[in-house]
């Protein structure tokens, strides 16, 4: 075990914690940006990531092994040194990329067989090999190779994958050469079946790992199933260890999962949506490509303190997005700042005993008409957070005026929960 996890505050299932890793001491809940082609977040430097407030970033094992190769990284002192990132790193097992990027992947008991994209030769990624690569890379947290199956698939494959994941975790543990400086997280599989999920949770908890991830979600399942799996897993996983929901995601999903007791998240969404010209704002998403943006002299988000919102208007960003790489860069910067602020808000609101107020405020701004989705209602009930007054429509002409670009903050002060 190479981490310490201390819960500093709670609200029902939600927790604010301090996660001490070899390279950095983090505050949870937290969002982890994803690096591609190695670990660089497209368009941003490590200095900028630090300024933004990123605490942990994901390195992509598959890409790193392909180029420059994990052995080279190890020879040069590990990925932290290689990319000049002082804070924490997490690497995935490489399995997901293989399954999602390569069309002819075949999963057997031995491992994942696939065609090398370099020369077409058959290659095999075993649990041992995955851990070996991740040991070379040197991240603070490494992920077990799991047999990942999309939740949209049904049938015996899900059960097979869940049991195989448990057999593979033992092979991962045996292969792990640096447990004193790298934390191996197990991944709970089992599709949408509560029985399978329960078996998997108990199996992994028995292995006494430093932390646990909830995998196999964020792949197209309906939201109602999604939150139930998260709720079930967080209820069964140990209190005193971090819980990581893989592939999540949208700010709303992160708020809900945090209310249900999860601590860590990763997703390509904020950076990918930036490259398509969309900025994350408290109300949802601002599409900079829209014609209306060409004359809009406001920043993306007047309440955002990031470098982009302090310097740039929507009008200027509109002329950049999808035409100039600078547009992607600036939007990625803003979107990651947004996610870092969301993480901070979650941590602080739980710590300071105002988590329900934060959740209500968040939902009111995202759903000013009061149309909070049913699945969020259901999840919040289990989380023990009363969101009833976010679900009645406000009486003011908020939407119409907002669309016209009129600043109505002086006419329409935000309502406060009693």
């Amino acid at each position, binding site marked *: 075990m190479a981490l310490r996890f201390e819960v500093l505050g709670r609200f029902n299932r939600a927790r604010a914690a301090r996660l001490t890793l070899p390279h950095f001491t983090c505050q949870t809940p937290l969002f982890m940006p994803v690096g591609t082609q190695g670990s660089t977040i497209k*368009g941003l*430097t490590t*200095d*900028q990531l630090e*300024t933004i407030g990123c605490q942990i970033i994901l390195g992509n094992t598959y890409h790193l092994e392909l180029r420059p190769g994990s052995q080279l990284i190890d020879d040069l002192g590990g990925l932290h040194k290689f990319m000049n990132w002082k804070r924490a790193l997490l690497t995935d097992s490489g399995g997901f990329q293989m399954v999602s990027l390569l069309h002819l992947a075949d999963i057997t008991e031995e491992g994942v067989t696939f065609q090398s994209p370099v020369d077409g030769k058959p290659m095999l990624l075993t649990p041992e090999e995955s851990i070996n690569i991740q040991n070379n890379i040197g991240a603070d947290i490494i992920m077990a190779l799991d047999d990942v199956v999309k939740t949209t698939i049904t049938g015996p494959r899900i059960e097979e994958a869940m049991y195989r994941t448990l057999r593979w975790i033992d092979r991962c543990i045996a292969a792990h050469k640096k447990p004193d400086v790298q934390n191996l997280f197990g991944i709970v599989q089992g599709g949408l079946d509560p029985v399978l999920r329960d078996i998997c949770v108990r199996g992994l908890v028995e292995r006494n790992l430093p932390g646990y991830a909830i995998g196999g979600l964020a792949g197209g399942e309906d939201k109602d199933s999604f939150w139930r799996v998260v709720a079930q897993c967080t209820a069964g996983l140990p209190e005193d260890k971090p819980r990581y929901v893989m592939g999540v995601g949208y700010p709303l999903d992160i708020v809900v999962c945090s209310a249900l007791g999860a601590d860590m998240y990763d997703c390509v969404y904020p950076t990918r949506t930036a490259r398509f010209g969309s900025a994350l704002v408290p109300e949802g998403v601002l599409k900079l490509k829209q014609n209306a943006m*060409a*004359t809009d*002299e406001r920043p993306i988000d007047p309440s955002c303190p990031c*470098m*982009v919102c*302090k*310097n*740039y*208007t929507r*009008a*200027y960003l*509109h*002329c*950049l997005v999808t*035409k*100039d*790489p*600078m547009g992607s*860069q*600036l939007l990625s*910067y803003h979107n990651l700042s947004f996610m870092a602020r969301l993480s901070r808000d979650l941590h602080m609101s739980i710590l300071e005993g105002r988590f329900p107020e934060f959740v209500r405020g968040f939902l009111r701004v995202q759903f000013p008409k009061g149309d909070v989705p049913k699945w969020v209602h259901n999840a919040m009930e289990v989380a023990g957070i009363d969101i009833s007054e976010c679900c009645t429509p406000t009486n003011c002409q908020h939407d119409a005026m907002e669309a016209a670009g009129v600043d109505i903050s002086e006419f329409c002060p935000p309502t406060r929960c009693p």
Partner: protein
Amino acid sequence: MRFAVTKVCASGAKARAGLLQIGSSGVETPALLLSTRKGLPAFMSPDLLSSLPLPDSLLLNVCPTHFIEVPPSKTISNIGGLHRMLGLPDHILVAAAGESTECLPSSDATNKFGASFETPAGRKLVKPSDYMELISCLQPNLWASLADEVPAWVNEKRNKTSVERTLRWLDACIALDAASGRNSLGVVVGGSSIEQRKLCATEVSKRNVSGFWIGGFGLGESVEERCSLLNAVTDCLPLEKPRIVSRLGLPGACDTSFFFLEDGL
């Protein structure tokens, strides 16, 4: 804008060191202007730009034609011009109409009304009035006048026409300028003809400009030609005003840079 030559090379060489002062920023010359796309250097947002050496990295070359479609002029003015729009209040922004990657001069389509450019928004004809509208809302620190830059292989007649148009457009731009040319850089063209180059340089020097933009290079002339052409031009320019030359190629071509230094730029 203030410019002063601080030191001249001895023994007849023309190279000189100088100091360019704009607002509170001062840059020693010879200096390099960083090229930009829509006002920002490629991949360098303002927070990264500030980590480059100062004050040298304060000089940016901005192309007004990058903004020919969006944002609208009124929006740019409302925002407060280039410096505010780009988030670079302390930088020295020098505007010139054509540049080597995004806004190539398209001399075939240029006519007596305006200069044509291949812009990211397609081919555009820019008249002096269009250009000065952009300049007045962008408010760069210095701006080069609209010019007819032609490749080295055009015939004598076309080359002569390019000089006539460039001078006419210079006068038109100054006339349309609220500051009557106080921050202008007169553009010198003339292609590969020493005679035309000298003629243009002499004529431009007579106008009320703050400095000179030596254009028409990087359009097919040979490296050897360049030196004699530049020499001819600088011979006709007043010593006390700054001279900018564009599109000379990679800094790695050391022997050619050396010549240019000698030519007094």
